[in-house]
């Protein structure tokens, strides 16, 4: 693969980040990119390698370690008509810029009565499973699902990452793009210029017994669980929401009309998570579709631990998903 030339289409998830930024910048001169160590160094995970060489220091800028300034700079530049892409290195660092994201980025349009639109793409490296411990591994997407004014996407494949990034950059609203650190080696093929619409879930596989909804790392575990359950004669539909806000409820409800059983798998504690919110909405809008109480497979109510055995126990496993699916079938 020659990430630096940005011509190869068979890529892994890591390489797709740089490629998707590259293509968005090629397509629109108002797009530029900044963050900590993203330029000359190519990013701490090498997810942005090569961009600085192609576009130079005017369009690819290294910032100080100043998350508030990074998000604020993106807001201001967007208000001036540009389409900035800004990176928060580890998603957890968004806490430093919480005010900028929640009080400024999310509310600017509404508070001004629509005078200002903010086409900001904020990229964040997310998630547990890599041994980075409690301050570098959280499911940060759940911090933002209850904040009106933000769109939130969480792609789990190369194709979705590329397509949602193109959609995010073209969107006139702020979009938070969560990239999962455990998926960097996942392989796929990008179609240059392809857009995955924000707000559209993907039906990853179809089965008539149970609907499993899972994103990012959990999506891959759900697919593995579903393959195992096939052998037991339990056939699952797996839906990857891909976008968490606005959530594609209709695809889930349509599947429940077939299966009548729901298992949602979410990384992180249940309370305040997108999975819990989905279960609540299904209870409100799809109660009569259900033949069993909906299940939420999630993490215990603790910070993310460091030790491999503990972190493994913290994350929902394939076994956990299989067990919950069996239990809704036996309900």
């Amino acid at each position, binding site marked *: 693969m020659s990430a630096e030339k940005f011509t190869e289409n068979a890529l892994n998830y890591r390489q797709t980040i740089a490629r998707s930024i590259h293509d968005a910048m090629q397509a629109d001169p*108002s797009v*530029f990119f900044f963050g900590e160590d993203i330029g000359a160094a190519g990013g701490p995970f090498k997810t942005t390698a090569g961009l600085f060489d192609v576009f130079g220091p*005017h369009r690819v*800028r290294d*910032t*100080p370690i*100043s998350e*508030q*300034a990074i*998000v*604020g*700079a*993106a*807001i*201001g*530049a*967007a*208000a*001036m*008509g*540009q389409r*900035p892409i800004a990176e928060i290195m580890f998603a957890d660092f968004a806490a430093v810029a919480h*005010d*900028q994201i929640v*009080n*400024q980025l999310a509310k*600017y*349009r*509404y*508070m*001004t*009565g*629509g*005078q*200002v639109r903010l086409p900001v793409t904020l990229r964040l490296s997310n998630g547990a499973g890599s041994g980075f411990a409690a301050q570098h591994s959280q499911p940060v997407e759940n911090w933002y699902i209850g904040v*009106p*004014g*933000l*769109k939130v996407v969480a792609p789990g494949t190369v194709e979705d990452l590329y397509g949602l990034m193109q959609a995010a950059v073209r969107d006139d*609203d702020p979009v938070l793009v969560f990239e999962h650190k455990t998926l960097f080696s996942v392989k796929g093929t990008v179609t240059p210029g392809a857009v995955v619409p924000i707000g559209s879930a993907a039906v990853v596989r179809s089965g008539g017994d149970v609907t499993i909804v899972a994103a990012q790392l959990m999506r891959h575990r759900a697919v593995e669980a579903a393959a195992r359950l096939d052998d037991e004669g339990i056939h699952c539909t797996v839906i990857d929401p891909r976008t968490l*806000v*606005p959530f594609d409820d209709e695809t889930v409800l349509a599947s429940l009309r077939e299966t009548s059983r729901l298992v949602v798998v979410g990384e992180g504690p249940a309370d305040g998570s997108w999975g819990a919110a989905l279960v609540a909405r299904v209870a409100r809008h799809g109660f009569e579709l259900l033949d069993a109480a909906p299940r939420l497979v999630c993490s215990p109510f603790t910070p993310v631990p460091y030790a491999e055995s503990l972190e493994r126990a913290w994350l929902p496993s394939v076994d956990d998903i299989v067990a919950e699916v069996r239990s809704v079938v036996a309900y």
Partner: protein
Amino acid sequence: MVRIREFENGVGTLFHRNLVRGSTHLYNGQEAVAVGAVAALRPTDPVTCTYRGHGVVLARGSDPVACYAEILGRSGGLCGGKGGSMHLTDVSRAHYGSHAIVGAHLPIAVGLGLGAQYRGTDEVSLTFFGDGTVNIGAFHEALNLAAVWSLPVVFVIENNLYGEYSPVAATTPITRLADRAAGYAMPGVQVDGNDVHAVRDIVATAAERARGGGGPTLIEALTYRQVGHSRSDPATYRPEGELDAWLERDPITLLERFIGDAAATASVRERVAAEITAALDAALALPEPDEAELLTDVIG
């Protein structure tokens, strides 16, 4: 300046009639800062300010009817009634908002300057903020980034001696706030914030420097908040005689003394007072926003 003073007196009246929701923060005494600074800018230069922002928006030329309507939460308000007193915004006049989290708009002001620098146009971003802001992290991140990228930004501290209820000395270990600039290798200058001409001249110098690629400047305008922090604050913590001393140096009085034509300035006051009364009445006649507006301008 007279328009701002009359407008704010009208807001005070509305507040006491219970027509202003939440709170409101008046600009009385600081008029020369907004008017002087805005006079030094081009109409396309983006401006941001604080929740004590009515004066800045009016200095930018916004319609007093739309400003009153916003404060009253009426249809026809600058922000359609969704922002209120603390968030007056008029992008049609390059006013990018009154911001109500202390310091939060400084990174945004840096971004407005970045937008201009990136696209290669020569706008200068000017941002107003209070003395209390020099102690919050966003201030430091913003000044640092503006300096390291040589962005066209003018930072204007409105030092009115009080951060909310506390005097500057109780919260800040330096007395000359402009000295904060030294840590960011940018000029830090003080100006008499009640002298509109002095403010205009020092901002003009900073704006010219920024427009020429010379980077940001920190200006400390020394002024005085003649009223409490918000309309619920009687400001009893002020030392005896302080207000009177500053009223002697009221910026409008100073300007009228400079003009030296009592008849002409009296006639201006009379004309503006009538205009503001009419604006207030016009705003009061506007309806509340339609409930359907609740759901617009969120996402999508």
